[in-house]
Protein backbone atom coordinates (compact mmCIF):
# COMPACT_ATOMS: atom_id res chain seq x y z
CA UNK A 1 0.00 0.00 0.00
CA UNK A 2 3.00 2.26 -0.41
CA UNK A 3 1.78 5.04 -2.64
CA UNK A 4 3.97 7.86 -1.54
CA UNK A 5 6.28 8.46 -4.47
CA UNK A 6 9.38 9.70 -2.73
CA UNK A 7 12.32 10.31 -5.03
CA UNK A 8 15.01 8.72 -2.96
CA UNK A 9 13.04 5.62 -2.12
CA UNK A 10 14.28 5.88 1.44
CA UNK A 11 11.81 4.13 3.63
CA UNK A 12 11.00 4.27 7.28
CA UNK A 13 9.23 1.70 9.41
CA UNK A 14 6.37 0.03 7.62
CA UNK A 15 7.52 1.12 4.17
CA UNK A 16 5.94 4.55 4.38
CA UNK A 17 8.39 7.38 4.29
CA UNK A 18 7.82 11.00 5.08
CA UNK A 19 7.95 12.81 1.75
CA UNK A 20 11.13 14.46 0.59
CA UNK A 21 10.23 16.02 -2.75
CA UNK A 22 8.13 19.14 -2.78
CA UNK A 23 5.67 20.54 -5.23
CA UNK A 24 7.42 23.79 -6.03
CA UNK A 25 4.87 25.86 -7.94
CA UNK A 26 2.52 28.20 -6.10
CA UNK A 27 2.75 27.49 -2.39
CA UNK A 28 -0.64 28.15 -0.81
CA UNK A 29 -1.22 29.01 2.78
CA UNK A 30 -4.05 27.12 4.50
CA UNK A 31 -4.96 28.12 8.04
CA UNK A 32 -6.47 25.28 10.02
CA UNK A 33 -8.04 25.49 13.47
CA UNK A 34 -7.73 22.49 15.76
CA UNK A 35 -8.48 21.36 19.31
CA UNK A 36 -5.60 19.58 21.07
CA UNK A 37 -6.73 15.94 20.83
CA UNK A 38 -5.13 12.76 19.48
CA UNK A 39 -7.73 12.65 16.71
CA UNK A 40 -6.13 15.79 15.23
CA UNK A 41 -3.10 13.57 14.44
CA UNK A 42 -3.61 13.48 10.67
CA UNK A 43 -3.79 17.26 10.45
CA UNK A 44 -0.76 17.68 12.72
CA UNK A 45 1.23 15.00 10.87
CA UNK A 46 0.41 16.68 7.53
CA UNK A 47 1.94 19.91 8.84
CA UNK A 48 4.85 18.40 10.79
CA UNK A 49 6.12 15.60 8.58
CA UNK A 50 6.14 17.34 5.21
CA UNK A 51 2.98 15.89 3.65
CA UNK A 52 1.36 19.30 3.19
CA UNK A 53 4.58 20.95 2.01
CA UNK A 54 5.00 18.26 -0.61
CA UNK A 55 1.64 19.25 -2.10
CA UNK A 56 2.63 22.91 -2.10
CA UNK A 57 0.60 23.76 0.96
CA UNK A 58 1.87 25.74 3.88
CA UNK A 59 -0.39 24.41 6.61
CA UNK A 60 -0.67 26.82 9.52
CA UNK A 61 -2.22 25.20 12.55
CA UNK A 62 -4.02 27.34 15.10
CA UNK A 63 -4.87 25.81 18.46
CA UNK A 64 -8.26 26.62 19.92
CA UNK A 65 -10.16 25.80 23.08
CA UNK A 66 -13.79 25.19 22.19
CA UNK A 67 -15.90 23.77 19.38
CA UNK A 68 -18.09 26.86 19.41
CA UNK A 69 -14.97 28.93 18.67
CA UNK A 70 -13.92 26.56 15.91
CA UNK A 71 -17.36 26.94 14.33
CA UNK A 72 -17.38 30.74 14.58
CA UNK A 73 -13.78 31.27 13.53
CA UNK A 74 -14.30 29.08 10.48
CA UNK A 75 -17.49 30.99 9.64
CA UNK A 76 -15.68 34.33 9.91
CA UNK A 77 -12.71 33.33 7.79
CA UNK A 78 -10.13 33.29 10.53
CA UNK A 79 -9.65 29.66 9.47
CA UNK A 80 -9.79 28.19 5.97
CA UNK A 81 -10.48 24.69 7.28
CA UNK A 82 -10.91 23.19 10.72
CA UNK A 83 -10.71 20.00 12.78
CA UNK A 84 -14.35 19.42 13.68
CA UNK A 85 -16.68 16.95 15.28
CA UNK A 86 -18.40 14.87 12.59
CA UNK A 87 -21.87 15.99 13.77
CA UNK A 88 -20.98 19.69 13.34
CA UNK A 89 -21.47 19.88 9.54
CA UNK A 90 -24.70 17.89 10.01
CA UNK A 91 -25.93 20.35 12.67
CA UNK A 92 -25.05 23.27 10.41
CA UNK A 93 -26.96 21.73 7.48
CA UNK A 94 -29.97 21.52 9.83
CA UNK A 95 -29.50 25.05 11.14
CA UNK A 96 -29.04 23.77 14.71
CA UNK A 97 -27.09 25.46 17.49
CA UNK A 98 -26.08 29.08 17.99
CA UNK A 99 -24.86 30.93 14.94
CA UNK A 100 -25.11 28.08 12.41
CA UNK A 101 -23.29 28.75 9.15
CA UNK A 102 -22.65 26.50 6.15
CA UNK A 103 -19.94 23.84 6.60
CA UNK A 104 -19.22 20.73 4.57
CA UNK A 105 -16.69 17.97 4.96
CA UNK A 106 -14.79 16.20 2.18
CA UNK A 107 -12.55 14.18 4.53
CA UNK A 108 -12.94 12.21 7.76
CA UNK A 109 -9.87 12.38 10.00
CA UNK A 110 -10.33 8.79 11.12
CA UNK A 111 -12.23 6.60 13.48
CA UNK A 112 -11.84 5.88 17.14
CA UNK A 113 -10.30 7.62 20.08
CA UNK A 114 -13.24 8.05 22.40
CA UNK A 115 -13.99 6.17 25.57
CA UNK A 116 -16.38 6.30 28.49
CA UNK A 117 -14.82 6.64 31.94
CA UNK A 118 -16.65 6.45 35.26
CA UNK A 119 -15.39 7.49 38.67
CA UNK A 120 -13.71 4.70 40.60
CA UNK A 121 -16.40 5.02 43.29
CA UNK A 122 -19.27 4.62 40.87
CA UNK A 123 -17.53 1.64 39.31
CA UNK A 124 -16.95 0.01 42.72
CA UNK A 125 -20.68 0.28 43.33
CA UNK A 126 -21.36 -1.41 39.97
CA UNK A 127 -18.94 -4.19 40.92
CA UNK A 128 -20.69 -4.72 44.23
CA UNK A 129 -24.19 -4.85 42.73
CA UNK A 130 -23.47 -6.78 39.54
CA UNK A 131 -20.51 -8.94 40.59
CA UNK A 132 -18.19 -7.43 38.00
CA UNK A 133 -14.67 -8.87 37.86
CA UNK A 134 -13.27 -6.01 35.82
CA UNK A 135 -13.05 -7.80 32.47
CA UNK A 136 -16.67 -7.39 31.37
CA UNK A 137 -17.63 -5.87 28.03
CA UNK A 138 -19.17 -2.46 27.47
CA UNK A 139 -22.76 -3.72 27.41
CA UNK A 140 -22.41 -5.59 30.71
CA UNK A 141 -20.96 -2.43 32.22
CA UNK A 142 -23.94 -0.37 31.02
CA UNK A 143 -26.33 -2.93 32.50
CA UNK A 144 -24.44 -2.83 35.79
CA UNK A 145 -24.71 0.96 35.79
CA UNK A 146 -28.45 0.56 35.29
CA UNK A 147 -28.62 -1.55 38.48
CA UNK A 148 -26.74 1.13 40.40
CA UNK A 149 -29.03 3.87 39.07
CA UNK A 150 -32.10 1.86 40.12
CA UNK A 151 -30.56 1.58 43.58
CA UNK A 152 -29.74 5.32 43.62
CA UNK A 153 -33.37 6.11 42.82
CA UNK A 154 -34.68 3.82 45.58
CA UNK A 155 -32.40 5.53 48.07
CA UNK A 156 -33.31 8.99 46.80
CA UNK A 157 -29.69 9.92 46.11
CA UNK A 158 -28.72 12.44 43.42
CA UNK A 159 -28.48 10.99 39.90
CA UNK A 160 -25.01 10.49 38.40
CA UNK A 161 -23.66 13.47 36.47
CA UNK A 162 -21.90 12.56 33.21
CA UNK A 163 -19.87 14.90 31.05
CA UNK A 164 -19.60 15.13 27.27
CA UNK A 165 -17.99 17.74 25.05
CA UNK A 166 -20.57 19.53 22.94
CA UNK A 167 -24.29 19.13 22.14
CA UNK A 168 -23.49 18.06 18.55
CA UNK A 169 -20.67 15.64 19.24
CA UNK A 170 -19.96 12.00 18.62
CA UNK A 171 -19.36 11.82 22.38
CA UNK A 172 -22.88 12.96 23.16
CA UNK A 173 -24.45 10.44 20.78
CA UNK A 174 -22.08 7.61 21.79
CA UNK A 175 -22.62 8.11 25.51
CA UNK A 176 -26.38 8.22 24.94
CA UNK A 177 -26.24 5.12 22.73
CA UNK A 178 -24.29 3.19 25.37
CA UNK A 179 -26.54 4.27 28.23
CA UNK A 180 -29.69 3.45 26.25
CA UNK A 181 -28.31 0.03 25.27
CA UNK A 182 -28.11 -0.68 28.99
CA UNK A 183 -31.69 0.51 29.52
CA UNK A 184 -30.69 3.91 30.97
CA UNK A 185 -32.50 7.03 29.74
CA UNK A 186 -29.84 9.73 29.22
CA UNK A 187 -32.23 12.60 29.98
CA UNK A 188 -34.08 11.06 32.90
CA UNK A 189 -31.79 8.61 34.67
CA UNK A 190 -28.57 10.64 34.62
CA UNK A 191 -27.67 14.29 34.25
CA UNK A 192 -25.61 15.18 31.19
CA UNK A 193 -23.34 18.20 31.32
CA UNK A 194 -20.54 19.60 29.18
CA UNK A 195 -16.98 19.56 30.49
CA UNK A 196 -13.97 20.69 28.44
CA UNK A 197 -11.93 17.49 27.90
CA UNK A 198 -8.67 18.71 29.53
CA UNK A 199 -10.66 19.40 32.72
CA UNK A 200 -12.33 15.99 32.97
CA UNK A 201 -9.83 14.43 35.40
CA UNK A 202 -10.04 17.38 37.74
CA UNK A 203 -13.84 17.43 37.57
CA UNK A 204 -13.92 13.69 38.29
CA UNK A 205 -11.56 13.87 41.25
CA UNK A 206 -13.40 16.89 42.67
CA UNK A 207 -16.67 14.94 42.45
CA UNK A 208 -18.23 17.53 40.12
CA UNK A 209 -18.98 14.71 37.66
CA UNK A 210 -19.28 10.92 38.03
CA UNK A 211 -18.10 10.03 34.55
CA UNK A 212 -17.53 11.30 31.04
CA UNK A 213 -17.22 10.43 27.38
CA UNK A 214 -14.40 12.32 25.67
CA UNK A 215 -11.58 11.70 23.20
CA UNK A 216 -8.00 10.58 23.77
CA UNK A 217 -5.90 11.02 25.76
CA UNK A 218 -8.20 12.21 28.55
CA UNK A 219 -9.69 8.84 29.51
CA UNK A 220 -6.25 7.31 29.95
CA UNK A 221 -5.13 10.42 31.85
CA UNK A 222 -7.98 9.94 34.34
CA UNK A 223 -6.96 6.30 34.88
CA UNK A 224 -3.30 7.29 35.29
CA UNK A 225 -4.39 9.78 37.94
CA UNK A 226 -6.31 6.95 39.64
CA UNK A 227 -9.64 8.75 39.55
CA UNK A 228 -11.31 6.96 36.63
CA UNK A 229 -12.27 3.55 35.28
CA UNK A 230 -12.73 3.03 31.52
CA UNK A 231 -15.96 1.08 30.92
CA UNK A 232 -16.37 1.34 27.14
CA UNK A 233 -14.47 2.54 24.09
CA UNK A 234 -15.86 3.85 20.82
CA UNK A 235 -15.22 0.50 19.08
CA UNK A 236 -17.53 -1.23 21.57
CA UNK A 237 -20.40 1.07 20.62
CA UNK A 238 -19.96 1.28 16.86
CA UNK A 239 -16.54 0.64 15.28
CA UNK A 240 -17.29 2.50 12.02
CA UNK A 241 -18.43 5.67 13.75
CA UNK A 242 -16.69 8.69 12.19
CA UNK A 243 -14.98 10.86 14.78
CA UNK A 244 -13.49 14.14 13.59
CA UNK A 245 -13.67 15.60 10.11
CA UNK A 246 -12.12 18.46 8.17
CA UNK A 247 -14.75 21.19 8.06
CA UNK A 248 -14.69 23.58 5.10
CA UNK A 249 -16.91 26.50 4.11
CA UNK A 250 -18.66 25.53 0.85
CA UNK A 251 -17.78 28.94 -0.59
CA UNK A 252 -14.07 28.34 0.16
CA UNK A 253 -14.24 24.87 -1.43
CA UNK A 254 -15.83 26.37 -4.56
CA UNK A 255 -13.29 29.15 -4.95
CA UNK A 256 -10.21 27.07 -4.05
CA UNK A 257 -10.78 23.69 -5.72
CA UNK A 258 -7.08 23.11 -6.47
CA UNK A 259 -5.95 23.96 -2.94
CA UNK A 260 -8.64 21.75 -1.45
CA UNK A 261 -7.66 18.85 -3.71
CA UNK A 262 -4.00 19.22 -2.72
CA UNK A 263 -4.97 19.38 0.94
CA UNK A 264 -6.98 16.17 0.62
CA UNK A 265 -4.00 14.43 -1.03
CA UNK A 266 -1.72 15.66 1.77
CA UNK A 267 -4.14 14.48 4.45
CA UNK A 268 -4.54 11.11 2.74
CA UNK A 269 -0.75 10.57 2.75
CA UNK A 270 -0.45 11.80 6.32
CA UNK A 271 -3.26 9.47 7.40
CA UNK A 272 -1.54 6.46 5.81
CA UNK A 273 1.67 7.40 7.62
CA UNK A 274 -0.14 7.77 10.96
CA UNK A 275 -1.62 4.30 10.55
CA UNK A 276 1.77 2.56 10.55
CA UNK A 277 2.38 1.36 14.14
CA UNK A 278 6.12 1.98 13.83
CA UNK A 279 5.49 5.66 13.15
CA UNK A 280 3.44 6.17 16.24
CA UNK A 281 6.35 6.76 18.59
CA UNK A 282 7.43 9.69 16.44
CA UNK A 283 3.83 10.89 16.22
CA UNK A 284 3.43 10.68 20.00
CA UNK A 285 6.58 12.71 20.42
CA UNK A 286 5.25 15.56 18.31
CA UNK A 287 1.76 15.40 19.84
CA UNK A 288 3.22 15.67 23.33
CA UNK A 289 4.74 19.09 22.62
CA UNK A 290 3.21 22.11 24.38
CA UNK A 291 1.95 23.62 21.12
CA UNK A 292 -0.12 20.47 20.55
CA UNK A 293 -1.55 18.25 23.31
CA UNK A 294 1.04 19.02 25.98
CA UNK A 295 0.81 15.75 27.85
CA UNK A 296 2.91 12.67 28.58
CA UNK A 297 4.48 11.16 25.46
CA UNK A 298 4.25 7.71 26.99
CA UNK A 299 0.49 7.95 27.58
CA UNK A 300 0.02 9.28 24.04
CA UNK A 301 2.05 6.43 22.59
CA UNK A 302 0.07 3.81 24.49
CA UNK A 303 -3.21 5.47 23.49
CA UNK A 304 -2.14 5.47 19.84
CA UNK A 305 -1.39 1.75 20.06
CA UNK A 306 -4.68 1.08 21.85
CA UNK A 307 -2.92 -0.34 24.92
CA UNK A 308 -5.07 0.61 27.80
CA UNK A 309 -4.80 0.46 31.47
CA UNK A 310 -8.51 0.55 32.22
CA UNK A 311 -8.45 1.04 35.96
CA UNK A 312 -6.13 2.02 38.78
CA UNK A 313 -5.89 -1.68 39.76
CA UNK A 314 -3.96 -2.23 36.56
CA UNK A 315 -6.51 -4.10 34.39
CA UNK A 316 -5.20 -4.06 30.84
CA UNK A 317 -7.01 -4.06 27.57
CA UNK A 318 -5.72 -3.81 24.01
CA UNK A 319 -7.90 -2.35 21.27
CA UNK A 320 -5.85 -2.66 18.07
CA UNK A 321 -8.21 -0.39 16.11
CA UNK A 322 -8.59 2.22 18.82
CA UNK A 323 -7.31 4.60 16.16
CA UNK A 324 -7.87 3.90 12.46
CA UNK A 325 -6.46 6.87 10.65
CA UNK A 326 -6.58 5.52 7.11
CA UNK A 327 -7.28 1.80 6.67
CA UNK A 328 -10.70 0.50 5.67
CA UNK A 329 -11.65 3.79 4.04
CA UNK A 330 -11.45 5.59 7.39
CA UNK A 331 -11.21 8.96 5.61
CA UNK A 332 -14.16 8.43 3.29
CA UNK A 333 -17.07 10.73 4.21
CA UNK A 334 -19.94 8.23 4.05
CA UNK A 335 -23.24 10.00 3.47
CA UNK A 336 -24.93 7.13 5.31
CA UNK A 337 -22.90 8.07 8.40
CA UNK A 338 -24.10 11.68 8.19
CA UNK A 339 -27.60 10.22 8.06
CA UNK A 340 -26.89 8.06 11.12
CA UNK A 341 -25.86 11.19 13.02
CA UNK A 342 -29.12 12.80 11.86
CA UNK A 343 -31.03 9.75 13.14
CA UNK A 344 -29.51 10.20 16.61
CA UNK A 345 -30.37 13.91 16.61
CA UNK A 346 -33.97 12.88 15.95
CA UNK A 347 -33.83 10.10 18.53
CA UNK A 348 -32.85 12.54 21.27
CA UNK A 349 -35.27 15.30 20.34
CA UNK A 350 -32.80 17.78 18.85
CA UNK A 351 -34.69 17.87 15.54
CA UNK A 352 -37.63 16.13 13.87
CA UNK A 353 -37.39 13.91 10.80
CA UNK A 354 -38.48 15.16 7.41
CA UNK A 355 -37.43 14.18 3.88
CA UNK A 356 -36.34 17.81 3.26
CA UNK A 357 -34.02 17.72 6.25
CA UNK A 358 -32.67 14.36 5.20
CA UNK A 359 -31.85 15.92 1.83
CA UNK A 360 -29.96 18.75 3.52
CA UNK A 361 -27.99 16.31 5.67
CA UNK A 362 -26.87 14.50 2.51
CA UNK A 363 -25.11 17.69 1.34
CA UNK A 364 -22.98 17.99 4.52
CA UNK A 365 -20.65 15.06 3.70
CA UNK A 366 -19.00 15.33 0.28
CA UNK A 367 -17.56 12.02 -0.98
CA UNK A 368 -17.47 13.55 -4.48
CA UNK A 369 -14.75 16.01 -3.41
CA UNK A 370 -12.80 13.20 -1.76
CA UNK A 371 -12.92 11.05 -4.93
CA UNK A 372 -12.08 13.97 -7.23
CA UNK A 373 -8.93 14.73 -5.27
CA UNK A 374 -7.64 11.17 -4.99
CA UNK A 375 -8.74 9.74 -8.32
CA UNK A 376 -9.88 6.16 -8.82
CA UNK A 377 -8.27 3.87 -6.30
CA UNK A 378 -9.20 0.37 -5.28
CA UNK A 379 -9.56 1.29 -1.60
CA UNK A 380 -12.07 4.09 -2.22
CA UNK A 381 -15.74 3.06 -2.04
CA UNK A 382 -17.81 3.55 -5.18
CA UNK A 383 -21.07 4.07 -3.29
CA UNK A 384 -21.84 7.12 -1.12
CA UNK A 385 -24.25 5.25 1.13
CA UNK A 386 -24.40 1.83 2.66
CA UNK A 387 -26.33 -0.03 5.32
CA UNK A 388 -24.39 0.61 8.55
CA UNK A 389 -23.86 -2.04 11.20
CA UNK A 390 -24.59 -4.93 8.87
CA UNK A 391 -21.22 -6.69 9.24
CA UNK A 392 -19.80 -8.16 12.38
CA UNK A 393 -16.75 -5.90 12.27
CA UNK A 394 -19.10 -2.93 11.94
CA UNK A 395 -21.78 -3.91 14.47
CA UNK A 396 -23.57 -1.60 16.87
CA UNK A 397 -23.45 -2.53 20.56
CA UNK A 398 -27.19 -3.33 20.56
CA UNK A 399 -27.11 -5.22 17.26
CA UNK A 400 -29.26 -2.63 15.46
CA UNK A 401 -28.80 -2.18 11.72
CA UNK A 402 -29.08 1.29 10.19
CA UNK A 403 -30.67 1.63 6.78
CA UNK A 404 -30.35 5.29 5.75
CA UNK A 405 -33.27 4.83 3.36
CA UNK A 406 -35.64 4.28 6.21
CA UNK A 407 -34.82 6.37 9.25
CA UNK A 408 -38.33 6.43 10.80
CA UNK A 409 -38.50 2.63 10.73
CA UNK A 410 -35.00 2.39 12.25
CA UNK A 411 -35.99 4.70 15.10
CA UNK A 412 -39.02 2.58 15.95
CA UNK A 413 -36.61 -0.15 16.99
CA UNK A 414 -35.36 1.83 20.01
CA UNK A 415 -36.96 1.42 23.42
CA UNK A 416 -35.13 4.38 24.92
CA UNK A 417 -35.52 7.69 23.10
CA UNK A 418 -36.90 11.24 23.22
CA UNK A 419 -38.97 11.02 20.07
CA UNK A 420 -42.00 12.47 21.80
CA UNK A 421 -40.11 15.67 22.66
CA UNK A 422 -40.97 18.07 19.92
CA UNK A 423 -38.46 20.79 19.43
CA UNK A 424 -39.45 24.45 19.43
CA UNK A 425 -39.54 25.96 15.97
CA UNK A 426 -39.71 22.56 14.39
CA UNK A 427 -41.85 23.49 11.44
CA UNK A 428 -39.50 26.14 10.15
CA UNK A 429 -37.68 24.09 7.58
Amino acid at each position, binding site marked *: MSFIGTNNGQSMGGGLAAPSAMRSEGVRVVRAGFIPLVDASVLIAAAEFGFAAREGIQLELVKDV*SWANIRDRLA*FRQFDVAHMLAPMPVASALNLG*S*NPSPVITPFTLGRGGNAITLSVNLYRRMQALADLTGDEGALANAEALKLVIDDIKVRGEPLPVLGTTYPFSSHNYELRYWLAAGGIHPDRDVK*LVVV*PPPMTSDALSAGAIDGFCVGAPWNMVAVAREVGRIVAVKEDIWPSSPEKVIGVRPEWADSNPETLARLIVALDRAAAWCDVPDNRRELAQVLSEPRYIDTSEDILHRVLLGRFTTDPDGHERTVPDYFSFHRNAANFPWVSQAQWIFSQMIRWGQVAHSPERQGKVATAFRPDLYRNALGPRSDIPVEDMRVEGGHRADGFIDGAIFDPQNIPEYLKGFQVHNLETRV*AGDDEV
Partner: protein
Amino acid sequence: MSASLSIMVFDENRIRASIIEEGLREAGHDRVVVLHDIAGLARQIEQIQPDVIVIDIETPNRDMLEHLFQLSRSVRKPIAMFVDSSDSSSIEAAVDAGVSAYVVDGLKKERVKPILDMAVSRFKAFSRLQQELAEAKTALEERKIIERAKGILMKSRKISEEEAYSLLRQTAMNEKKKLSDIAQSVVMAAAMLGS
Protein backbone atom coordinates in the same frame (compact mmCIF):
# COMPACT_ATOMS: atom_id res chain seq x y z
CA MET B 1 -34.70 54.16 27.11
CA SER B 2 -36.94 51.37 28.35
CA ALA B 3 -36.10 49.09 31.29
CA SER B 4 -32.38 48.53 31.47
CA LEU B 5 -30.95 45.26 30.26
CA SER B 6 -29.61 42.63 32.57
CA ILE B 7 -26.09 41.81 31.40
CA MET B 8 -23.91 38.93 32.51
CA VAL B 9 -20.18 39.05 31.85
CA PHE B 10 -18.28 35.76 32.07
CA ASP B 11 -14.53 36.14 31.94
CA GLU B 12 -11.93 34.17 33.86
CA ASN B 13 -9.57 37.12 33.48
CA ARG B 14 -10.60 39.38 36.34
CA ILE B 15 -8.86 42.49 35.06
CA ARG B 16 -10.51 42.28 31.66
CA ALA B 17 -13.87 41.52 33.22
CA SER B 18 -13.66 44.61 35.40
CA ILE B 19 -12.66 46.75 32.42
CA ILE B 20 -15.81 45.60 30.61
CA GLU B 21 -17.97 46.03 33.66
CA GLU B 22 -16.72 49.57 34.13
CA GLY B 23 -17.45 50.39 30.50
CA LEU B 24 -20.97 49.03 30.77
CA ARG B 25 -21.65 51.03 33.92
CA GLU B 26 -20.27 54.17 32.32
CA ALA B 27 -22.66 53.58 29.43
CA GLY B 28 -25.53 53.61 31.92
CA HIS B 29 -26.06 49.88 32.42
CA ASP B 30 -26.54 49.28 36.10
CA ARG B 31 -27.65 45.65 35.99
CA VAL B 32 -24.29 44.01 35.31
CA VAL B 33 -23.20 40.75 36.93
CA VAL B 34 -19.61 39.59 36.51
CA LEU B 35 -18.66 35.92 36.91
CA HIS B 36 -15.15 34.54 36.88
CA ASP B 37 -15.83 30.96 37.72
CA ILE B 38 -17.71 28.37 35.71
CA ALA B 39 -18.97 26.61 38.83
CA GLY B 40 -22.60 27.50 39.26
CA LEU B 41 -22.84 29.37 35.95
CA ALA B 42 -25.96 27.46 34.95
CA ARG B 43 -27.64 28.24 38.26
CA GLN B 44 -26.64 31.90 37.98
CA ILE B 45 -28.11 32.16 34.48
CA GLU B 46 -31.32 30.65 35.76
CA GLN B 47 -31.50 33.01 38.75
CA ILE B 48 -30.43 36.21 37.07
CA GLN B 49 -32.14 35.55 33.74
CA PRO B 50 -29.77 37.87 31.88
CA ASP B 51 -30.85 39.38 28.59
CA VAL B 52 -27.30 39.20 27.28
CA ILE B 53 -24.31 37.08 28.19
CA VAL B 54 -20.92 38.43 27.15
CA ILE B 55 -18.26 35.73 27.23
CA ASP B 56 -14.56 35.68 26.52
CA ILE B 57 -13.88 33.19 23.71
CA GLU B 58 -10.60 32.04 25.19
CA THR B 59 -12.53 30.02 27.72
CA PRO B 60 -13.14 26.37 26.87
CA ASN B 61 -16.37 26.71 28.85
CA ARG B 62 -18.07 28.27 25.85
CA ASP B 63 -19.10 24.76 24.84
CA MET B 64 -20.92 24.42 28.14
CA LEU B 65 -23.06 27.41 27.27
CA GLU B 66 -23.88 25.84 23.91
CA HIS B 67 -25.08 22.81 25.80
CA LEU B 68 -27.22 24.86 28.19
CA PHE B 69 -28.89 26.63 25.30
CA GLN B 70 -29.55 23.35 23.56
CA LEU B 71 -31.15 22.07 26.77
CA SER B 72 -33.37 25.10 27.24
CA ARG B 73 -34.39 24.79 23.61
CA SER B 74 -35.64 21.29 24.17
CA VAL B 75 -37.65 22.34 27.22
CA ARG B 76 -39.15 25.25 25.31
CA LYS B 77 -37.54 28.02 27.27
CA PRO B 78 -36.39 31.05 25.31
CA ILE B 79 -33.86 30.19 22.66
CA ALA B 80 -30.47 31.68 23.17
CA MET B 81 -28.75 32.80 20.04
CA PHE B 82 -25.46 34.30 19.11
CA VAL B 83 -26.54 37.90 18.65
CA ASP B 84 -28.71 38.09 15.55
CA SER B 85 -27.31 35.83 12.89
CA SER B 86 -28.31 38.34 10.22
CA ASP B 87 -25.85 40.82 11.69
CA SER B 88 -22.72 38.98 10.66
CA SER B 89 -20.43 42.02 10.72
CA SER B 90 -21.01 42.43 14.46
CA ILE B 91 -20.26 38.80 15.13
CA GLU B 92 -17.20 38.96 12.94
CA ALA B 93 -15.86 41.97 14.83
CA ALA B 94 -16.58 40.21 18.11
CA VAL B 95 -14.85 36.99 17.13
CA ASP B 96 -11.90 39.04 15.90
CA ALA B 97 -11.60 40.80 19.21
CA GLY B 98 -11.98 37.59 21.21
CA VAL B 99 -15.42 38.05 22.69
CA SER B 100 -18.83 36.53 22.09
CA ALA B 101 -22.25 37.58 23.18
CA TYR B 102 -25.32 35.45 23.55
CA VAL B 103 -28.70 37.11 23.71
CA VAL B 104 -32.03 35.70 24.64
CA ASP B 105 -34.25 35.40 21.60
CA GLY B 106 -36.65 38.24 21.07
CA LEU B 107 -34.35 40.99 22.24
CA LYS B 108 -33.98 43.70 19.60
CA LYS B 109 -30.67 43.82 17.81
CA GLU B 110 -30.48 47.60 18.21
CA ARG B 111 -30.36 47.19 21.97
CA VAL B 112 -27.62 44.58 21.94
CA LYS B 113 -25.31 46.06 19.37
CA PRO B 114 -24.03 48.95 21.52
CA ILE B 115 -23.24 46.49 24.31
CA LEU B 116 -21.35 44.21 21.99
CA ASP B 117 -19.55 47.16 20.37
CA MET B 118 -18.52 48.36 23.80
CA ALA B 119 -17.29 44.89 24.79
CA VAL B 120 -15.33 44.63 21.55
CA SER B 121 -13.62 47.99 22.03
CA ARG B 122 -12.81 47.15 25.65
CA PHE B 123 -11.40 43.78 24.64
CA LYS B 124 -9.21 45.50 22.09
CA ALA B 125 -8.09 48.09 24.61
CA PHE B 126 -7.22 45.29 27.01
CA SER B 127 -5.11 43.42 24.48
CA ARG B 128 -3.32 46.65 23.55
CA LEU B 129 -2.59 47.15 27.22
CA GLN B 130 -1.25 43.62 27.50
CA GLN B 131 0.92 44.07 24.45
CA GLU B 132 2.36 47.30 25.82
CA LEU B 133 3.08 45.53 29.09
CA ALA B 134 4.79 42.68 27.27
CA GLU B 135 6.85 45.14 25.25
CA ALA B 136 7.86 47.05 28.36
CA LYS B 137 8.88 43.78 29.98
CA THR B 138 10.94 42.75 26.96
CA ALA B 139 12.66 46.15 26.91
CA LEU B 140 13.56 45.75 30.55
CA GLU B 141 14.91 42.25 29.98
CA GLU B 142 16.97 43.49 27.05
CA ARG B 143 18.48 46.28 29.12
CA LYS B 144 19.41 43.80 31.84
CA ILE B 145 21.11 41.43 29.43
CA ILE B 146 23.08 44.29 27.84
CA GLU B 147 24.27 45.36 31.27
CA ARG B 148 25.44 41.83 32.02
CA ALA B 149 27.21 41.51 28.67
CA LYS B 150 28.95 44.83 29.27
CA GLY B 151 30.10 43.61 32.67
CA ILE B 152 31.52 40.41 31.21
CA LEU B 153 33.38 42.27 28.47
CA MET B 154 34.76 44.85 30.91
CA LYS B 155 36.09 42.11 33.13
CA SER B 156 37.48 39.72 30.54
CA ARG B 157 38.95 42.33 28.20
CA LYS B 158 39.77 44.89 30.86
CA ILE B 159 38.03 47.73 29.04
CA SER B 160 35.82 50.60 30.18
CA GLU B 161 32.05 50.55 30.19
CA GLU B 162 31.86 52.85 27.16
CA GLU B 163 34.31 50.67 25.27
CA ALA B 164 32.33 47.54 26.15
CA TYR B 165 29.13 49.16 24.92
CA SER B 166 30.60 50.34 21.65
CA LEU B 167 32.14 46.91 21.09
CA LEU B 168 28.72 45.35 21.46
CA ARG B 169 27.14 47.93 19.20
CA GLN B 170 29.80 47.62 16.54
CA THR B 171 29.48 43.83 16.53
CA ALA B 172 25.71 44.11 16.23
CA MET B 173 26.07 46.44 13.27
CA ASN B 174 28.64 44.20 11.57
CA GLU B 175 26.53 41.09 12.11
CA LYS B 176 23.30 42.91 11.22
CA LYS B 177 21.77 41.72 14.47
CA LYS B 178 20.03 43.35 17.39
CA LEU B 179 22.22 44.67 20.18
CA SER B 180 20.33 42.50 22.67
CA ASP B 181 20.97 39.37 20.57
CA ILE B 182 24.71 40.00 20.59
CA ALA B 183 24.57 40.67 24.34
CA GLN B 184 22.67 37.39 24.78
CA SER B 185 25.40 35.52 22.86
CA VAL B 186 28.10 37.06 25.02
CA VAL B 187 26.31 36.07 28.21
CA MET B 188 25.70 32.55 26.95
CA ALA B 189 29.28 32.12 25.74
CA ALA B 190 30.57 33.33 29.07
CA ALA B 191 28.35 30.84 30.89
CA MET B 192 29.58 28.00 28.68
CA LEU B 193 33.21 28.97 29.12
CA GLY B 194 32.67 29.17 32.84
CA SER B 195 33.93 32.71 33.12
